[in-house]
């Protein structure tokens, strides 16, 4: 029995000494808070077992020897207390449990120093020392149970690796408490009894459990992580089939929260919370604000993973920073990259859909606007074909005038549609030359059926711009048509050189553009108002002005005049000399 006992002592020394070394090596490698806790805890246990193994079992009777043994006993009793504090740091115990553990530990550490000399291990114990042994057992068992139960319970719903680590630590803790109970209850001082062998055997068996809990080997972690890998694989499948940004966010967020042991999480996309787990979606922005605040304060229980588009924000459980493995986060990160690809795919699909809708709108508007003047032309020509002889000459002239007006309107529409299509396809032909501005303005007035007598023109003769004259005409005609059709007189055209640009302003004194219509004013088919009651026109005029200005390196802007009356469009065209001197001039011009 003695040899079995001695063998078990050696095995125990190897197991717990090894455990202390492994936990310390893990801490040196990772430097995490959880690793530091576990290295400290198992260094205490391994150290005490090593010292206990090498110091003589018989007390020498000297004062130093007695003090050393009592100090070692106090350090040993710190093992269950340290485990308790570790569990407490994950999830605080109730106040009375904490007080009881702390009180029992202080008492169990200090009492030996008050009791006088240690009893001889071969001899009988005094009553006081007998009572102390019971106190020691109560401290150990109470702290161990408090720690073990907490670790076991808190492991629920955690990622598999964290859960199994917590439960291994918990089982080991229960095992050592059982060993102490067996030793105190059935052991006799000085005897190598069956109880002491059983105690040692339980202790030895607890070793592997602590190894799994504190420093699980990589292959064990891989085995344990299989469910999370399966979850991520499923998430990838969902991501591949997702058709909207919300679907992508939902496909990723729920598995992500599960894999990293999160309690709640939100997915942020373009500043908005588009998916949430563990919180109501409408509570998402508030949750996000709180989580952002925690991140700013350096809270390591918040995972903030930024993707190329959007970000994941997950509130981790308190176990994750202590017992979680960075591998889980890396696993999540690799899946999140696929989410970025999915966002890109969905973005492209949305662009294609928008292009299809734009194309459909274009066809609808184009067909409507082309058919209306056509109807007038067909109506009059049909009438005259059948009733030519019956129609008086003056009516024929009136009909002809209307046909002519509608034909010109039709020609302008066709022209606008062609130019806008070329602008859209970036296939516009331009031939910029130096153009004196005033003659072009007067020509544009003539085209829109008015002249300088009805429109106030203040354009210095000296201004010359570098632009394709055809495009300048189109810009001026479109702006003047808008001012005359949608605004009210007086209409003003002014021009001045401002730095590197010539600024041409066309202003009317009508109702102006409503503030809500301004942002979309230069979009294709933009018309003030909506539905059948919207303003007349193709909605292409300002789109064309904007597009042509971009082509020459200029720009157009809408302004409300300081008086608040009317609409003012300001066109800025680079002056001729700027284009000629610019090294990039060729690129600007050669469209």
């Amino acid at each position, binding site marked *: 029995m003695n040899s079995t006992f001695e063998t078990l002592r050696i095995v125990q020394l190897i197991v717990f000494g090894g455990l202390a070394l492994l936990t310390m090596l893990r801490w040196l490698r990772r430097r995490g808070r959880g690793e530091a806790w576990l290295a400290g805890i198992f260094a205490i246990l391994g150290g005490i077992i090593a010292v206990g193994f090498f110091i003589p079992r018989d007390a020498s009777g000297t004062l130093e020897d007695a003090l050393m043994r009592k100090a070692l006993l106090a350090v040993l009793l710190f093992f269950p207390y340290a485990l308790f504090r570790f569990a407490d740091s994950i999830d605080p115990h109730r106040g009375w449990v904490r007080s009881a553990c702390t009180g029992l530990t202080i008492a169990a550490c200090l009492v030996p120093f008050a009791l006088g000399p240690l009893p001889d291990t071969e001899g009988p114990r005094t009553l006081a020392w007998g009572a102390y042994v019971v106190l020691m057992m109560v401290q150990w068992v109470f702290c161990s149970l408090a720690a073990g139960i907490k670790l076991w319970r808190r492991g629920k719903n955690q990622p598999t690796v964290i859960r199994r680590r917590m439960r291994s630590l918990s089982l080991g803790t229960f095992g050592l408490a059982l060993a102490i109970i067996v030793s105190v209850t059935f052991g006799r001082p000085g005897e190598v009894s069956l109880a002491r062998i059983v105690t040692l055997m339980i202790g030895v068996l607890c070793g592997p459990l602590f190894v799994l809990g504190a420093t699980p080997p990589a292959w064990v972690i891989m085995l344990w992580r299989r469910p999370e890998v399966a979850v991520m694989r499923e998430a990838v499948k969902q991501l591949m089939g997702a058709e909207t940004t919300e679907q992508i966010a939902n496909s990723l967020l729920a598995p992500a929260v599960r894999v990293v042991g999160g309690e709640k999480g939100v997915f942020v996309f373009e500043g908005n919370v588009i998916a949430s787990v563990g919180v109501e979606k409408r509570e998402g922005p508030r949750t996000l604000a709180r989580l952002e605040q925690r991140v700013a304060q350096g809270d390591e229980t918040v995972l903030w993973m930024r993707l190329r588009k959007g970000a994941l924000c997950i509130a981790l459980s308190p176990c994750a920073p202590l017992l979680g493995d960075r591998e889980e986060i890396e696993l999540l990160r690799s899946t999140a990259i696929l989410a970025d690809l999915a966002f890109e795919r969905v973005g492209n699909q949305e662009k294609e859909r928008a292009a299809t809708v734009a194309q459909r709108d274009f066809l609808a508007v184009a*067909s409507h606007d*082309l*058919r209306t003047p056509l*109807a007038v032309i067909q*109506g*009059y020509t*049909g009438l005259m074909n059948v009733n030519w002889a019956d129609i008086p000459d003056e009516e024929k002239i009136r009909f002809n005038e209307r046909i002519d007006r509608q034909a010109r309107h039709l020609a302008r529409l066709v022209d606008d549609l062609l130019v806008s299509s070329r602008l859209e396809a970036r296939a516009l032909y331009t031939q910029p030359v130096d153009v004196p501005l005033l003659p072009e303005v007067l020509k544009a007035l003539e085209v829109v059926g008015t002249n300088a007598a009805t429109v106030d023109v203040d354009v210095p003769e000296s201004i010359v711009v570098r632009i394709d004259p055809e495009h300048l005409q189109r810009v001026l005609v479109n702006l003047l048509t808008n001012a005359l059709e949608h605004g009210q007189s007086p209409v003003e055209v002014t021009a001045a050189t401002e730095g590197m640009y010539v600024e041409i302003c066309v202003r009317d004194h009508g109702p102006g553009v409503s503030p809500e219509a301004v942002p979309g004013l230069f979009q294709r088919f933009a018309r003030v108002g909506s539905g*059948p009651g919207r303003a007349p026109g193709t909605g292409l005029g300002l789109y064309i002005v904007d597009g042509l200005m971009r082509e020459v390196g200029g720009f157009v802007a809408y302004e409300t005049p300081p008086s608040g009356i009317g609409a003012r469009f300001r066109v800025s065209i680079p002056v001729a000399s700027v284009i000629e001197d610019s090294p990039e001039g060729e690129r600007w011009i050669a469209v």
Partner: protein
Amino acid sequence: MSGILLVEDDPDLRMMLRVVLGRIPDCDVTGEALDANEAIEAAGNLKPFLIILDHSLGGAMTGLEVAPMLRAAAPNAHILLFSAYDLSREAAAEPAIDGFLRKDSVQTLRSTIEKIRTVV
């Protein structure tokens, strides 16, 4: 019950229709309206036998939307929807509308009116 009510906001088109209809027997234009409200009021007052109704009216309502109200105002009037959009299917699905004519087929206006008269 007599005459035709023209509901069209484009003045050139309205004028053309008036001229063309003037050459068709029993198709005098007795009223014109530019939007839905004017149309409902005119239909109630004039009780025309035919309302030529543009779809894209000025105002908030479309021709398709205003048709049931016109039918209520003038129950015996035939309603011909007139639009540059291809709305033949929508017009067929609206019980208040008796016929549809696309604007670029205005040369068939006479035969369309005769068909409506015969069928309805």
